[in-house]
């Protein structure tokens, strides 16, 4: 892909990034509420119960987006214009992401997307992104 701000991985979040490196999207799941959790927590935000990692479909829709013409940070200087979006996953949670393989003019709120994976330059991290479904 291109240069990025490399995410600071912790022991708590390592399963998410390990799965991403295997091209799988996993989220924590709260058994008590039967709901998925994002971003990762130490305890369920619904009552503090336990959470377990589970693979999810990788399908979602664009909740909102922007096309950044000016780099939000110098590290993105070669990436602009870039589509930054909030994706609402089929399992419920929303997450920040990028929409790739899509002409910015074709972006729409509500459009169906699916997860894709791209390696970050200069790191061993693979970043989940989304592309038109």
């Amino acid at each position, binding site marked *: 892909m291109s240069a990025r*701000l490399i995410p*600071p991985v912790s022991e708590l979040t390592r399963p998410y990034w390990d799965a991403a490196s295997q091209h799988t999207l996993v989220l924590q799941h709260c058994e008590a509420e039967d709901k998925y959790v994002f*971003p990762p927590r130490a305890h369920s935000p619904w009552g503090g119960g336990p959470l377990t990692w589970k693979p999810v479909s990788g399908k979602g829709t664009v909740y909102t987006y922007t096309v950044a*013409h*000016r780099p939000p*940070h110098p590290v993105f*200087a*070669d*990436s602009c214009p870039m589509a*930054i979006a909030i994706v609402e996953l089929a399992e419920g949670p929303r997450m920040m992401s990028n929409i790739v393989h899509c002409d910015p003019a074709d972006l729409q709120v509500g459009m169906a997307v699916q997860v894709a994976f791209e390696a970050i330059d200069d790191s061993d991290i693979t970043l989940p992104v989304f592309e038109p479904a």
Partner: protein
Amino acid sequence: MSLRGAAAVVGVAEKAPQRYTGEETILELLSEAANDAIADAGFQHNQVDGLIVHPIGGLPGFVPATVAEFLGLQPTFAEVVDLGGATGAGMVWRAAAAIQSGMCTSCLCLTGTRRRRRTPRPAAKTDDIKTDDIKTDDFKTDKGASPERRQPRSIQPSRDRSPLAEFDSPYGMVGANVGYAMLATRYTHEYGLTDEQRAKVAVDQRKNANVNPAAIFHDQPLTIEEVLASEIICEPLHMLEIVMPAAGAAALLVTSANRVADARQAPAWVLGAGESVTHSSLAQAPGLDTTGIGIAAHAAFSQAGVQPSDVGLASLYDCYTIMVLLTLEAAGFCGRGEAGAFVQSHDMTYAGDFPLNTHGGQLSFGQAGMAGGMSHVTEAVRQIQGRAGDRQITGLELAYAHGNGGIIAEQAGLVFGAQR
């Protein structure tokens, strides 16, 4: 229990926003504003026994003690408020609550930031990018970024271990432009909004700034066409819809009801307050119909026992044009989905039928860090006190001030009244 009428603002001082400060330290800047506010009220230092400040870059901690010693205060109530752009409004109700509970009698609320001129960076991609004039230049992210490099390399994690750094920043959700642009996209999708409607907010506020000598854009008229001709930074937001960072300071002195008579200035009574914190990442924010903006505003109006339609000045946090529209609607100044039509059909200047951000707002008055959010409060107070000069609203009885932090994450609302 209600805060209504427990305390009033009796002293105001503001160091007018400017692009850069000189050699003075942040403590010198804050000290000037603090002393001016105490003097404005006609109080003495030994009458000030409360102090509220915010986190300050360059001071690793112990901020209230550091500031108090520098000012010559020994407060019996000392507090740090860390609510981004809602910090100023959040300070004022905390001051009133501390006074009401007996922890202090007169409380200084102090905000400010300094800003040194930096050596201009080489442009990110092309030579015509004016990185000096736009918020993208000021993001508080990795100082290790090396813009000189032709081809950027990825940047190792900084000391920031927040979920934002891990799950938002890698995608370019850095700073605020991206987030407010996404809010504008979503609002437009749900309710409809035109570029011209957003631009009208910036233009009416500029008209207000043009009669405020302290405003950073005091001498620069602005048209809707100019806003729409300015560069698109993040779709759909243009450069002139985006606040320009500045330096400055603002201080308020809040005192108890039974000390109001000691003050040189007329009181601006705190009649109601509300606050809300709903998320950190915009991806985790509630929907537009259930934002914290409305929670804080409705709490403030409810405590004051008044309606939005009762107030004669809306002093609303404006980091971006879209934020004003979101707040007008969520706070109840207009109905759901009506914000675009509302701003188009009202004259929002000091002389108009819906005075809004009569100081010019941050967009045209200037955003001096936390003092930017405090500017909505200082303007509401000055207008209530009848000290707003050429932009004074005639016969003003009630004003609403709203602060907003992060990407609509932190909210604080205040209702001020001329009468208790």
